[in-house]
């Protein structure tokens, strides 16, 4: 298995820059997600790792060796496409055997390897069936089997669950992740679905317009988004943005929104007379009646366990995730209490998050979990 290091990778298609100077590292054995909207460059990045596109510049190190300009077949990487392409005239066993047979492996070894892979995927009972009559789940498993059987250094997957229905997708996502945990194979996985990325990934790269916006664990990306794009792309509903203007000294521990002081994690840098944004996740606000910062309820959406309450505040619209038992009537004015440790501050102009004191944030979180 392998480590994949991406260094200053760039891809131009004529005048269009699909991927700009991207750098990140996929550690050995990691399940790594490339996440972003359509056209952000995630699939192009994956195709460059696979060798299906050659980069304009930059390096792709596979276990320390630069493979950026090598042919796909020389890279020892298996690609699982969105539409599982199986040979329709062959049965399951022959489909899975195919990559090994074409490598010239002996029949007995092929048989042993295919049985082993079928065991991992739980498809022993369908090995002699034609692929034509299989369910989409089994087709997906066979396609995976064909990738696994080669024992490649890494797996690349381009939205392998994109075509499946919601219920089945959730089950396959769990199955894929469990399979990864058993095999420990380095996997790079492209998706536009932030929930899928959060659920399956060890690490996530968030891309936008060909640029890597942030790279880290799901929890880091969710809790401390580096940019407003990431804050808005991750989470459903996304992070709320309350806009205000301020001059802040380094070390500031509160901001003033419409005349109300709101405590924030301690700022490491200062700004003068800038348009700023207070970022707050929907589940990090509690609704009450006594606080000073207030908003008017304009909508409620019932979601079962929770509800989304949308409020109009002097600094913008705010969506709050509250227990569905909590009363919130349209037209009512409620106070908003923010969970200080979880707040982000962004520069509205650049969209970049301002640096805050993480140690203080952690201490506050610890205090909260004891309290």
């Amino acid at each position, binding site marked *: 298995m392998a480590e994949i290091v991406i260094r200053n990778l760039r891809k131009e298609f004529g005048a269009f820059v699909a991927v700009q100077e991207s750098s990140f590292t996929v550690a050995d054995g990691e399940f790594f997600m490339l996440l972003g909207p359509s056209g952000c460059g995630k699939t192009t990045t994956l195709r460059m790792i696979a060798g299906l596109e050659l980069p304009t510049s930059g390096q792709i190190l596979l276990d320390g060796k630069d493979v950026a300009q090598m042919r796909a077949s020389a890279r020892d990487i298996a690609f699982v496409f969105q539409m599982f392409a199986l040979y329709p005239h062959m049965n399951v066993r022959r489909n899975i055997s195919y990559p090994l047979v074409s490598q010239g492996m002996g029949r007995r070894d092929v048989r042993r390897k295919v049985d082993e892979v079928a065991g991992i995927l739980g498809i022993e009972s369908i090995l002699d069936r034609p692929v034509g009559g299989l369910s989409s789940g089994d087709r997906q498993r066979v396609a995976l089997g064909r990738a696994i059987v080669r024992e490649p250094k890494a797996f690349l997957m381009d939205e392998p669950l994109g075509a499946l229905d919601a219920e089945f997708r959730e089950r396959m996502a769990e199955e894929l992740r469990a399979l990864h945990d058993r095999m420990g194979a380095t996997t790079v996985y492209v998706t536009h679905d932030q929930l899928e990325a959060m659920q399956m990934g060890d690490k996530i790269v968030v891309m936008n317009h060909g640029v890597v916006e942030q790279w880290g664990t799901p929890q880091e990306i969710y809790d401390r988004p580096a940019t407003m794009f990431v804050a808005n792309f991750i989470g459903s509903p996304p992070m709320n943005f309350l806009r205000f203007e301020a001059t802040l000294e380094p070390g500031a521990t509160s901001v003033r929104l419409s005349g109300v002081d709101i405590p924030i994690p301690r700022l490491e840098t200062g700004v003068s007379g800038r348009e700023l944004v207070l970022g707050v996740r929907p589940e990090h606000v509690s609704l009450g009646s006594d606080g000073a910062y207030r908003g008017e309820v304009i909508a409620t959406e019932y979601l079962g366990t929770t509800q989304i309450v949308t409020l109009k505040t002097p600094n913008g619209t705010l969506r709050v995730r509250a227990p569905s038992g909590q009363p919130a009537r349209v037209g009512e004015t409620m106070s908003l209490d923010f969970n200080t440790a979880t707040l982000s501050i962004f520069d509205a102009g650049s969209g970049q998050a301002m640096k805050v004191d993480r140690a203080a944030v952690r201490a506050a979180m610890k205090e909260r*979990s004891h309290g």
Partner: protein
Amino acid sequence: MAEVVLSGLTKRFGATTAVSDISMTIPDGAFVVLLGPTGAGKTTTLRLIAGLETPDKGNISIGGQDVVSASPAQRNVAMVFQQYSLYPHLTVRENLAFPLKSPLINAPEDEIERRIGEVAKVLQIAHKLDNKATALSGGEMQRVSIGRALVRKPHIYLMDEPLSSLDAKLRADLRVELKRIQADLGATLLYVTHDQIEAMTMATHIGVLDKGKLVQFGSPREIYENPSSIYVATRLGQPRINTLPASLFSNAPAGAELIGLRPEHIRQGEGRDATVTRVEHLGDQTRLHLSLDGHPLVTLTDAHTPLATGDTVAVRPENPLYFDADGARIVQGA
């Protein structure tokens, strides 16, 4: 817009009964979502109403008129398919104008312009109006095909998973938009999906289908809080409702085989000891995977929970749901 009534609707394809004796009233101005897995009969029901299939039995009335023998055009319904179907040689504007220029509608030019402008704005495709349909991304093409239905004022809009091929983010935006458009227009809309979030957030009424049968019809809250069977209970809720043998806990009513526990039905810190098998951070929710006497159980916890794999946590059911051996709901005290 109009009320649509289905009575005893049945459709067979060879030996398969796709739709089995469905009776349902879609009130005027309602947003009804048909929810069910692949093969439940959702799309067939939609196609029967549109007139693209003929029922073997039963009746369909639209606005009080019996339409079973009417042609699709006579029914005045607008359908949006899962796969967009646009005229590739026409621009976006011409595609949107097309339904309004049909001999049945024949709207005046200024009216056509006005409606296209409105719809294009709502669907965020105003800047693409003069592009050829083939020069659009998949998401844009699907928005145009939704737009082609919205420019009309039919008795009912019929939509077959119109958002399933879109980006997750765009899907979330359009969910809110579609709901708003429907409410603003006072439109009657029947919408087919297997996505429970779409059903929960957009529907005024949800019809749950299972193997061609309508098994429950009600508001999202009724379906979630008061499911008639274990099948219905598993359609809504993330994480999915836990089902365990009722005998694991005391106080089960007579005849109860299964206990259904949603996260809000699990009180932590008292009751029976369970082992933490995994803490799953999803950002907006943190899932606690537990094992209770070897039975898996998923509930929610605080994002900064000190609990870790191997820890023990006590759990107790609180107002749970009970089901009999056939999966039918047992209502306590009833």
